[in-house]
């Protein structure tokens, strides 16, 4: 009907701008990926096969597959079991266990790797990598699974009990199948994060695709071999992303329609067994939190010569590194949220095929290993826009690409909370478009935007891969300092940097929780993607 197509020229013009801006952001997001694929398409297939068909590559592939599979499985089991015990059994200090289960996520993997490797030379290679990654990533399973457990309708279990199923069969035939999307989704995130992991593998001397890509790139600035290995890594990531999409679709079909108020799910009485569970949780927290953090504390009290390589900390360097970490974090957060605004606005206010496509692009990029994106950007800066190479802006751009999907989720939900009705109401009260943005939309969405910014800040200060590859010569951050000192076995020297980084990470986590309000952990869990990105690129 003509009535509906009556839009003023100005409205259409404004919408055009919105779509153009969102499209531009998407293009920036996808550029490193496009360049890598384009490069691969240029190269000779025979040459490609030659590069990949080497014993070295076979052993790398084996290592990568081994660590991805075992981390994923262990995280799945650990996350499921701890989520079930903390949600479904009656334990003393009930509120503590979910916190302890999630907290290890706030410790960057290269810091815990540093802690373990500095304890003993034996803590290297596969077992150590497995230990570090399982500690850091099992919250990725714990969070969605415990949210799903809380969301289960207890009436279903009760019905199953009256149909003759005992508690055990009830778990396997009813609860587990319903947890499947959350569990598989969490496990796939673990797999993707493990595939992209870099810092921990280098520090623990475990060779995978990511470490080899880095080594080849550093060795000769020969981006050729590195690019071809990147393609292999990208293919593996694409497989996992495809699987994740399937699980996501399945999850949405499990959602039940209208439900009334439900009673709280019952918690199982374990009797004396509860102390065994408490002991288990405590032991786990010792390994994932207490030991790494107290090792850090130990090195703080030591002089430089207590470590294998005696290096003293320079106060000037410490200050410089902290300053540039914070500076990069703040600038990167601002840039990322700014770029996320048009996409988030489009998704919240004009959902449709275009918006859905752009969302997919963002999620695709989120799944790509950070080192691949960084290498792609290097190529862009060398071949396409030469002035960009080795500039701080390129690094900021890398951060924006890595963490934009993360910010986009928060921006979108912030804008969704600021209802469009109120925006229309403001217009009816005589406010112009930009006035509405300034006086209605931004104030209402501010906490959500702040949350997005602090999430990005947190991710940037703990980011290692892109920072190592792209930071301008002479720029050292906390993360790169820890990496350099630990690589040189100067453990005491690394400790102050690690301390400052841990404090920064905790402060921004605290800010994040504050901005998200009350039940922040639940809200994080509700949006598995929010959590996903935080560790996916470390």
């Amino acid at each position, binding site marked *: 009907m003509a009535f509906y197509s009556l839009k003023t020229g100005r409205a259409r013009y404004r919408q055009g701008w919105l779509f153009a801006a969102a499209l531009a952001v998407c293009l920036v997001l996808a550029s490193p990926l496009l360049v890598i694929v384009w490069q691969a398409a240029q190269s000779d297939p025979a040459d490609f096969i030659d590069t990949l068909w080497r014993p070295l590559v076979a052993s790398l592939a084996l290592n990568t597959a081994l660590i991805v599979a075992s981390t994923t499985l262990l995280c799945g089991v650990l996350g499921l079991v701890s989520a079930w015990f903390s949600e479904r059994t009656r334990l003393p200090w009930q509120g503590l266990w979910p916190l302890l289960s999630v907290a290890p996520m706030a410790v960057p993997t290269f810091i815990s790797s540093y802690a373990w490797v500095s304890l003993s030379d034996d803590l290297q290679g596969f077992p150590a990598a497995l230990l570090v990654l399982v500690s850091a990533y099992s919250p990725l399973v714990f969070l969605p699974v415990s949210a799903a457990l809380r969301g289960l309708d207890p*009436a279903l279990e009760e019905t199953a009990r*009256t149909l003759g199923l005992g508690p055990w069969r009830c778990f396997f035939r009813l609860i587990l199948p319903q947890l499947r999307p959350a569990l598989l989704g969490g496990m796939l995130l673990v797999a993707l994060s493990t595939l992209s992991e870099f810092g921990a593998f280098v520090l623990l001397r475990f060779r995978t695709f990511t470490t080899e890509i880095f080594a080849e790139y550093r060795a000769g600035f020969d981006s050729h071999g590195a690019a071809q290995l990147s393609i292999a890594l990208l293919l593996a990531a694409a497989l996992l992303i495809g699987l994740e999409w399937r699980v996501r679709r399945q999850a949405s079909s499990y959602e039940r329609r*209208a439900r009334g108020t439900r009673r709280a799910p019952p918690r199982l009485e374990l009797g004396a067994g509860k102390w065994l569970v408490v002991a288990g949780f405590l032991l786990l927290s010792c390994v994932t939190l207490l030991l790494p953090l107290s090792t850090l504390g130990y090195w703080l009290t030591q002089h430089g010569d207590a470590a294998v390589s005696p290096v003293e900390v320079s106060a000037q360097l410490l200050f410089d590194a902290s300053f540039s970490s914070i500076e990069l974090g703040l600038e990167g957060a601002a840039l990322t949220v700014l770029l996320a605004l048009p996409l988030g606005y489009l998704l919240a206010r004009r959902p449709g095929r275009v918006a859905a496509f752009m969302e997919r692009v963002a999620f695709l990029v989120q799944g790509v290993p950070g080192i691949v994106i960084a290498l792609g950007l290097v190529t862009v800066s060398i071949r396409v826009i030469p002035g960009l190479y080795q500039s701080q802006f390129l690094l900021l751009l890398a951060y924006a690409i890595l963490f934009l999907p993360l910010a986009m989720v928060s921006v979108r939900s912030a804008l969704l909370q600021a209802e469009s009705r109120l925006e229309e109401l403001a217009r009816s009260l005589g406010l112009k478009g930009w006035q509405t943005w300034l006086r209605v939309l931004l104030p209402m969405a501010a906490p959500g935007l702040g949350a997005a910014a602090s999430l990005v800040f947190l991710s940037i200060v703990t980011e290692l891969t892109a920072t190592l590859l792209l930071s301008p010569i002479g720029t050292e951050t906390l993360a790169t300092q820890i990496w350099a000192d630990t690589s040189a076995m100067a453990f005491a020297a690394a400790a102050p940097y690690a301390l400052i980084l841990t404090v920064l990470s905790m402060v921004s986590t605290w800010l994040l929780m504050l901005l998200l309000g009350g039940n922040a952990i639940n809200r994080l869990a509700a949006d598995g993607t929010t959590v996903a990105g935080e560790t996916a690129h470390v």
Partner: protein
Amino acid sequence: MSELSIQGLCKRFAQHRVIDQLDLHLTAGSTLALLGPSGSGKTTLLRMLCGFEHCDAGSISIGGTIVSSPGIHLPPERRRIGYVPQEGALFPHLKVADNIVFGLPRSLRKQRHRVAELLEMVGLPADYADRAPQHLSGGQQQRVALARALAAEPAVVLLDEPFSALDSGLRNDTRQAVMQALQAAGATAVLVTHDQSEALSCGEQVAVLWQGRLLQQDSPANLYRHPRTPELAGFLGESILLAGVATAGRVECVLGGFPMADSKLQGAVEVLIRPEQIRLGPPAPDTVQATVIGMEYFGHDATLHLQLRQGQHIIKARTSGWHAYQHGQTVALAVDGPLTVFAQQGPGRSTAETPDNARFLLSQS
């Protein structure tokens, strides 16, 4: 199908008595509607029958076996109870057929034992077997939930407000389908509701629960005609309470003298008259006359507000919606007896217009 028997059942949450000395007996194969206002403990009673809650005192036995008493608690999975929770609660990850056979042994599950038969019993086409529960309407979900409960041939079927989430049209259809299916299965069933017309139309027996106590259990007609207290009368439907004097099986009130249902009472009593017991006719000498002072018109029937010539009482009468009555018109009243009477309960209660007893009951709970 088994009989259900409850004796002296008590349940307390903290200090709050939710079920209080409850006795109830249901013969095998019959249907009981459990009626009670919100918060009266209906759900709690069902959950105790299912075995989700332990009992503090008393006992529950199904088919002669004690399943709950202070020392004994048979777990839910061994009670052979078919439970239909509010809103159906179908397993979202399973198709309709897999939902229905969920409680059966593996071999029967594989062959989709009796799925077609059960679907037909609850009035759904056989090709619904392969649908996902998310693609069913609320009423259809409710029916599948009943089929699932019946599939394991339970001793007793329990339904907790199965129709309350449905809108009125769907509600009637679903109710009929469910009642027919229960009858076809010959099930011993307890259906919980807070809607008195639903209770009266569903059960062979109706039990009224109020603040955790069982006020009365009877057939729907007996319950409606001869409730045990005036409050209960008001809860079950509109009622008129008049002062009267009982002597030798007859009671005298402003509307005349009538036979009593309970002839043992003597002296000052309260007389219960339902608005539909009053018949209107053209005014004639020697009749009780009244003036129409108000009318609520519903189409199929109408409620007239009448002011008696004598005594200035205002009473309500239900008439067919077909006859037109005018404001201010004079009519003659006759009453279909016999009447139910209650012993006078203290001096404070006035005899005139009925207080809204239903509301009184609800505000108590």
